[in-house]
């Protein structure tokens, strides 16, 4: 590999990580918002959110990405590959995050809410001080797992022309007529990131189990 190839991989790695982080940072609060709408049983909108989650969870990221990238300009919304990538990632992950947050909300003990109400806490304060810290802790392992799944599907973003790790590998493979080495380098870049998240999830789960046993 030439120094130029190494630079291409380094740049690609920055793009891959930046897009993943953007998707995660947008997907977390949006997922929580969607979960709250379903939890609060908001009429009509709650049903729409359930439909959105059901469809998005069944849609492959490639298909969603191609839909957004080609169809949005068609209806007069110009979109570049990077915005399409971030939009697709956050739509996809928000649907999964919604289900994770909702499971934690459904398991939340009602008596705590009633106790908070009886000491006169407002709805916003109840959510911030009582509900959020506990559901965040309960959802954390599943959320970290979802993050590792998100990073695992990012190679597909190269399809619309995002210049990430995968795109660099494809280009170098096409130039040198030896596709195997650049793809192995790409895997060597992805694997530690995903392994880090998987280990983090196991660590959190073990700590929870230890805390519950104590």
């Amino acid at each position, binding site marked *: 590999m030439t120094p130029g190839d190494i630079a291409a991989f380094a740049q690609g790695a920055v793009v891959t990580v930046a897009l993943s982080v953007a998707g995660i940072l947008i997907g977390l609060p949006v997922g929580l918002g969607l979960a709250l709408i379903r939890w609060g049983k908001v009429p009509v909108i709650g049903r729409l959110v359930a439909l959105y989650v059901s469809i998005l969870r*069944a*849609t*492959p990221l*490639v*298909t969603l990405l191609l*839909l957004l990238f*080609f169809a949005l300009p068609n209806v007069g919304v110009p979109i570049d590959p990077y915005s399409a990538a971030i939009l697709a990632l956050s739509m996809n992950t928000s649907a999964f995050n919604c289900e994770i947050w909702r499971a934690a909300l459904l398991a939340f003990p009602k008596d705590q809410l009633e106790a908070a109400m009886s000491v006169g806490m407002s709805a916003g304060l109840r959510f911030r001080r009582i509900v959020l810290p506990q559901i965040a802790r309960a959802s954390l392992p599943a959320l970290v797992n979802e993050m590792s799944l998100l990073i695992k599907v990012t190679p597909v973003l190269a399809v619309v022309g995002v210049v990430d790790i995968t795109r660099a*590998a494809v280009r170098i493979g096409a130039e040198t007529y030896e596709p195997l080495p650049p*793809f192995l380098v790409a895997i060597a870049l992805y*694997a530690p990131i995903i392994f880090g998240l998987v280990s983090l999830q196991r660590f959190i789960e073990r700590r929870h189990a230890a805390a519950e046993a104590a």
Partner: protein
Amino acid sequence: MIHDFGIVWNERGLLMSGLANTALLSVIAAVVSLLLGAALAPAMMSRRRAVAGAARAFVDAMRCVPFLLFAYIVYYGLPSLGINFDNWSAGLAALMLYNTAYMAEILRGAWAAMPREPIEAGTAFGFSGVRLFRRIILPGLVLSAGPVVGNQLIQIIKDSAFLTIIALPELTHAASSIQSRYYVPFAAFITAVALYWGLCLVVEGGVNVLRRLADARR
């Protein structure tokens, strides 16, 4: 807009063959990887350190590799080692091998979480070996691992869409070719999304039946 959907309707043959390919790929990959996973799961729990370590290393490695890159390696990489595939077999092989690791992990987890009492009771009633496995262990294992295997099948269906990149004529590839021929991106891809959704609803329906069976047995 209606006109666009008319074009997609005229090309329904192409979409349906894409859907059939997606369904076929996913089901074959799920069945084979479930069987291979069933062979790998006991290896992960083997008392021999080397066997357990090797099986665990394979499973962990697969779980850290993005599927798309794995498919690229199988499709572009193996021919340079002298193993040649057409894109259908390469895609199917990639799906099967990749998911074997996930299925093995699912089965190992379900096995480890199984209560010991029914097995002990079975042994006390004189069941052993194959009969113990078939009559006592297997039904419980199918009912407890079933929903997770169903989720994995949905994951396989979605992963199979990545194979459009190696030009495998599955559902997303069919939608892509309709869109590039007639420039009807919204109609083509939204139809594909609806078909994926339908496929996943069918799988979820099956999982729910299994879950109700499991509840009835409890």
